[in-house]
């Protein structure tokens, strides 16, 4: 369907009074909302440049201690990133960052491939039990994750992985990735199922008439056609997995293998200990910024594909 849909571009047209009022009210509403969104984020950013002492002293005061040379008392930029340096190095967030990147990227790519395959079969092949499988997948969306943790642990412990130190999936990135894939699968299938159903039949049929097999049809024709859908589910999975907390908390217990959300959680929960709020805020920024960047780069794609996907 490529009818003329609403567009965001503005052409010069004479504007009526009621339009002006409506636009004015709309802008006020949107500005307030934007401030509500951006305000806390900017505050977090600002706070990450304050010392723990400054943070607990006042929430609204601007950073100053890290902008001052402690020896001369004059303005200096060389200490500005103290919190970031300590979060990145001594609090290990640098390492967590790379761990997260590896685990999330691999899991995302894998779940997109497997999810697309599964959704494609369910959406476009009719066979006994296909509805059952679909609903089984949907049911997975409603399960509380931590209920599965102990049995999951035992499953991972009994699944052999020859090259791992213990010979099993447990305690390895592979194990965590596979678990991420399994838990991201329902939503991915759910999303792509609807997407594959909307794709026109004609091209696939033409290809099959030309003698293309099932494999070829999928990889050569259907998958490329599903690109927009894959892009948005890819972004959703990236965000969702980047933010995953409960699974790593229980399954990924080696400190050197921590992921970011887990690192922040544990850092914030250190009881009976000097809590370095400065580093905590820096760690929060370190965790948020990559996902924000990914979102900014792909937001157009996300917007486009969501709208394409909803056209039925």
């Amino acid at each position, binding site marked *: 369907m490529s009818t003329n849909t609403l567009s965001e571009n503005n052409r010069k047209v004479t504007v009526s009074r009621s339009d002006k009022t409506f636009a004015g009210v709309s802008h006020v509403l949107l500005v307030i909302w934007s401030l509500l969104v951006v305000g806390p984020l900017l505050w977090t950013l600002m706070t990450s440049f304050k010392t*723990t*002492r400054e943070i*607990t*002293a006042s929430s609204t005061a601007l950073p100053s201690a890290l902008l001052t040379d402690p020896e001369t008392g004059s303005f200096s930029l060389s200490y500005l990133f103290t919190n970031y340096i300590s979060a990145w190095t001594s609090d290990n967030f640098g390492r967590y960052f790379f761990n997260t990147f590896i685990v999330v990227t691999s899991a995302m790519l894998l779940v997109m491939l497997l999810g697309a395959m599964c959704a494609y079969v369910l959406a476009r092949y009719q066979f006994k039990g296909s509805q059952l499988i679909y609903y089984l997948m949907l049911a997975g969306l409603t399960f509380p994750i931590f209920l599965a*943790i*102990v049995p*999951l*642990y*035992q499953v991972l*412990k009994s699944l052999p992985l020859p090259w791992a130190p213990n010979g099993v999936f*447990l305690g390895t990135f592979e194990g965590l990735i596979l678990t991420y894939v399994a838990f991201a699968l329902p939503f991915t299938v759910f999303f792509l199922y609807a997407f594959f159903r909307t794709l026109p039949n004609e091209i696939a049929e033409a290809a099959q008439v030309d003698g293309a097999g099932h494999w070829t049809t999928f990889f050569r024709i259907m998958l490329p056609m599903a690109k927009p859908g894959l892009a948005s589910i890819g972004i959703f999975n990236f965000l969702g997995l980047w933010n995953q907390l409960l699974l790593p*908390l*229980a*399954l990924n*217990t*080696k*400190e050197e293998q921590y992921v970011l959300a887990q690192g922040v959680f*544990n850092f914030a*929960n*250190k*009881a*009976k*200990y*000097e*809590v*370095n709020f400065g580093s905590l805020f820096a760690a929060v920024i370190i965790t948020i910024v990559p996902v924000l960047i990914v979102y900014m780069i792909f937001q157009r794609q996300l917007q486009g594909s969501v709208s394409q996907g909803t056209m039925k």
Partner: protein
Amino acid sequence: MTYSLHRRGFLKGALAAGALIPLAACAGGGDDPKATPAGSEPAGGETTTQADPNNPFGLKVPSDVDAAIFNGGYGIAYAEFAGAMVEKQHDGVKVKVSKIQDATTELQPRFAGGDPPDVIDNAGKGKIGLAAILDQLEDLNDVIDSNNYEGDPIRDTLYAGVLEPGTIDDKLAVINYVLTVFGLWYSASLFEENGWEPPKTWDDAIALGAKAKEKGKYLFLWGNEASDYYMELAITSAIKEGGDEVRLALDNLEEGCWSKPALQAVFGKMEEIVKAGYVKPGGGGTQFTAAQAAWSQAQEALLYPSGAWIENEMKSQTKEDFKMTGTPVPTVTASPSKPFEAIHSAADEPYIVPSQGKNVAGGKEFMRAMLSKEAATNFAKEILSPTIVKDTVPEDGFGSTALVSQIGMLGAAGDNVFTWKFNAFYGMGNDTVVLWNSFLDGKLSTAELTSKLQEVTDAIRNDDAIEKFKAS
């Protein structure tokens, strides 16, 4: 099943006396180490004989020891220090010290899966409830009966009574490593400046509250997760007032235990303080370290009830020249059952060795190193807190006013040191925290607090699924 916890005069006088005064290491008896050979066959590796005092548990060489240490207030460096001592002692043994943050979440699957670590520091908010794992733990009496790395029998180097809380039916299931002193903490410099005295009775405290108000300050403040520090304060004060029967009633989950006159008197005084507006409002909505900073940095309140870890916890958020000092908690009357100097002190930081561990001997060897004087002194010096090992703190307290006052409080208390464990043992933390938040917020009266605490106690007593211990 009922477990009985023997309490043969926990923390006897020796503790107080011995805290500063070096005792001649009493190198008398000391049984031969009841060495238990580690679980299975020596698989190729060299095994030293059982009788070897340098290897009392038959630690296999080479082997790996998996130590899971709570990464909280004390960090894990002190455990790595002990791990290095084991490695030095037994060439070829590798001790892997890993951090845990929430013991239950992180280790529960490992227990269920049959591969727990060899030794665990089961501390922190997420510690594993003892009742749930008791039958899966090694008896650590053989560790205590062995010699430390300096060659002295470990049993002789410990403060008296420190093993009692971890002893259940003669089995030493837990070694609590750190000695914690509880009290009211204040800024000695602020008090001196204003000519204030730390309160000895609750009436003193109320009078001090009025003086604080004049200065635009509060007497107390609290934070959400730590509201039950005020329960610790109340129970300590009530035990001082009413004697051990209060403690026993609570520990044994007696009917009507919260209605004991001593507890009621303390609750009443605390309610008076809340009603008078001497408690900083809003604690229920404040993250606890943020609340504590309002005491240690902004000095919005005068007193804070806590364990001695507070100094370390607030290190970077304490006003310069604060001079953090501890004092025993106030009593109701001027002539209580136990003297004002009586304190709540407990060995904490519970170490356990699971029987299912791959290297049980390694876990025990790790504990032997931890209990050696070298490791214990290192702990006291780095953490500024005493361990259960005697004679590790010099007179200047390594420069810490809080450590000096802990030792002072222990010394003044003499025999009058006590502790209890019902809330920790039964995992009542969350329920009591919610109630104390409401009470400190003025939302619950003494009568309501009492009946709701009693409901919590009664629910546990009446739940047959929960095993009980018996205090005496």
